[in-house]
Structure formats: structure tokens, C-alpha cells
């Protein structure tokens, strides 16, 4: 799926469709409002993504307004689409720098679709710790250069984990903010 800064646009649009069918322009507006911030989606990205999702059976056309043209289609998520979103949300991301944008998206989508956002954070913490264990072990058996390289990665992972903890502590507030 197409990604912006590690964020999967396809999965995000699918997640936004879970609350009910939407037109392409409506999806773009919802995406920009929740996740776009300083990087709004182009209409072209929305329609190319939707046609790919349609081809893969993850969405279906729920209705077409008079006038025709791609921007008149109303899309609905299919059962396969719901399963796809669920799998994406449940799969931890590979720990890497600047992960917060995709994690933030997952947490917000989980809250919007009434899934367990704390579960996503716990699963991600576990994945981060798994990586930290590997680095810690490498450090114990490595030379000073290994130790310094591993330390750099460990401090970055630790920063991510602090963000995960802080977000976990603020889930109630975030839920109120995003569902308002």
C-alpha cells in the first residue's frame, strides 16, 4: 500500500470507511482533518488508492450519484476490508525512527472504530522491547564500537517507548478529542 512517512494511506482510508460509506471527497476531508495536518492528501491519491482497494475487493461501490465520473462514487468497506484493517492494526510496526506518525494513525483509527487502542500500544511496546533485547545482547558481546552503535539505537527506541507510555496514559483524553 502507498505510504506517506510510513503511514499506509490505503489502510487509513479503509479505517475511515468503517463508520459508514463515504464519497471520495468526503474521505479526503476526513483524512486531512484527522491525519493530514501539514500534508493534506491530493484528490489523485484518494482516487488511485480507492480504485486499487476496489480492485482488491477491500471496498465496493455503494452508490453512484447522477453525473457519473469517479468523484461521484460512494464507497463502502467490505468484510475483507475490515479484516485487512484489523490485521494492519494488530501487527506491530518494525521499530524505526519517526514511527510516531504511523502509530498515531493506528491509535486514532482504533479509537474511531471502537477497537482497543491500549492493545495496539502494548503490542508495539513488546515489539520494541524485543528489538531492545537483541541490541542489548549484541552490546554485551560486542566491542566498544558495537556498544556505541547499539546505544544510539537503544536510546531512540527508548524515546519511542516513552511516547507509547505517554499516549497510553492519555488514551481517554485522545478518545474524547477524536470522536468529538
Amino acid at each position, binding site marked *: 500500500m502507498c505510504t506517506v512517512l510510513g503511514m499506509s494511506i490505503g489502510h487509513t482510508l479503509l479505517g475511515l470507511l468503517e463508520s459508514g460509506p463515504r464519497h471520495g471527497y468526503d474521505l479526503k476531508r476526513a483524512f486531512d482533518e484527522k491525519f493530514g495536518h501539514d500534508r493534506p492528501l491530493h484528490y489523485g491519491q484518494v482516487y488511485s488508492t480507492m480504485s486499487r482497494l476496489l480492485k482488491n475487493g477491500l471496498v465496493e461501490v455503494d452508490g453512484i450519484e447522477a453525473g457519473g465520473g469517479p468523484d461521484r462514487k460512494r464507497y463502502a468497506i467490505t468484510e475483507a476490508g475490515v479484516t485487512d484493517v484489523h490485521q494492519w492494526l494488530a501487527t506491530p510496526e518494525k521499530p524505526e525512527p519517526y514511527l510516531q506518525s504511523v502509530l498515531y494513525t493506528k491509535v486514532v483509527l482504533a479509537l474511531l472504530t471502537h477497537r482497543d487502542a491500549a492493545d495496539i500500544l502494548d503490542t508495539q511496546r513488546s515489539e520494541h522491547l524485543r528489538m531492545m533485547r537483541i541490541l*542489548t545482547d549484541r552490546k554485551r558481546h560486542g566491542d566498544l564500537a558495537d556498544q556505541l552503535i547499539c546505544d544510539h539505537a*537503544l536510546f531512540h527506541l527508548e524515546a519511542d*517507548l516513552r511516547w507509547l507510555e505517554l499516549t497510553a496514559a492519555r488514551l481517554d483524553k485522545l478518545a474524547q478529542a477524536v470522536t468529538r
Partner: protein
Amino acid sequence: MTPPSGSLLAAEELRKAYGPTMALDGAHFSIHPGEVVAVMGPSGSGKSTLLHCLAGIVPPDSGSITYNGAELATMSDAQRSALRRSEFGFVFQFGQLVPELTCVENVALPLRLNGTSRKEAERAALGWMQRLEVDDLSKKRPGEVSGGQGQRVAVARALVTGPRVLFADEPTGALDSLNGERVMELLTEAARSTNAAVVLVTHEARVAAYSDREIVVRDGKSRDMERAV
């Protein structure tokens, strides 16, 4: 939820309230010999209460804790005390060493309390101090050593009786990164060499990275991340 077979120490459905505050609300735990398990979670989540219940220091309001198949609740106070003295070891964040005693006397103290002769206790204590790389401090008093050195002395004291379970509550909380790291390396190496299980309470991910797996406690409920996946 049934604890995995072969657990050395296991807890099920633990509940503990302090007044209106539920410190533990159905927590589970299990650990095998030789395993290092990190208990993680934010401040006030119930981590330390879980450790105190597991160690028999604080009785839970309800739930079951078994050590080596025996229920802690059915033991007498004397039996639980004996268990803590001979089978369990403890390392805390602060104030563990007796300031009037030398470091070697501090390490030898648990053996002395169990009736071991002074000579034999201090010989064993020096052996552990060597493993923790603090044997050169044997004649110094705790006030004369650094925080990191003092914590290594405390680890040596916790291991001197050959405990089967070592409880470590934020053992590096008062140390800088480098000293904290060395304490964790030595602590986990020493525990693994004796096949002791380590219950490691920490909110620091870098410390938890020395564990084999983690249990997350939040609002008094626990989640075993290995068994959850």
C-alpha cells in the same frame, strides 16, 4: 487463567485494595527457574504491590500465590519468613545497606542471620563480592562507596544465600546509565549462573531489555505479553 506448568512462582486473580484504591485487580503472574521477567507499567499501576504480594511481604485480599507448588496463604508467618530468608533475595532502589557495618559484613548478614559462622559467612560474601566486582570495597562502610558500588554490594547480599527467586524493585532507579547498565549485566549474569528466577520491577525500557519477557501492569491488571501473542 492457569499458570504454565513448571512455574516456580505463580499468582492468579490477585486482588489487593488500600482503602478505596484497588492496587491489584485480578493480576496474574508466573515465572520459571532461570527466567528474568520484567514487570512494567506506569507509576501507581500496581507493580510494586504485585512484587510485595509475590514475595509474601503483603498478603493479597484474594487470589492465589504458589511457590514451588505450595500455597503461600496456607503457610504460617514463620514459614513465610523462613522462605523470604532462604529462598528469596531482594534488591531495592534505596537504603538497603546497614551503614554501621562494612560492605563484607553487609553481604554476609543474611547468612549470619541463618546461623552460619562469621568466618564462613564472610568467605561466601567475599566470593559474591568478587563476582559483582566490588571485593576491593570489603572493608569500607556503605557511606564510603558510590551509588553504583553500593548497589552491587546489595546485589551480592541478595544472592549470598543462593535464593531461587530474586526480587528487584527498580534496582537501577537511583543510578546513572553506565552504572545502571553494569548493575543489570552483573545481576542477570549472576542470577543466570545459579538458575535463579528474577522478578524485575522497572519502568525503564533499557532495564527491561535485560529480561526474557515482560508483564505489563496497568490499573492493577496484568498482561503477559508473551502469552498474549
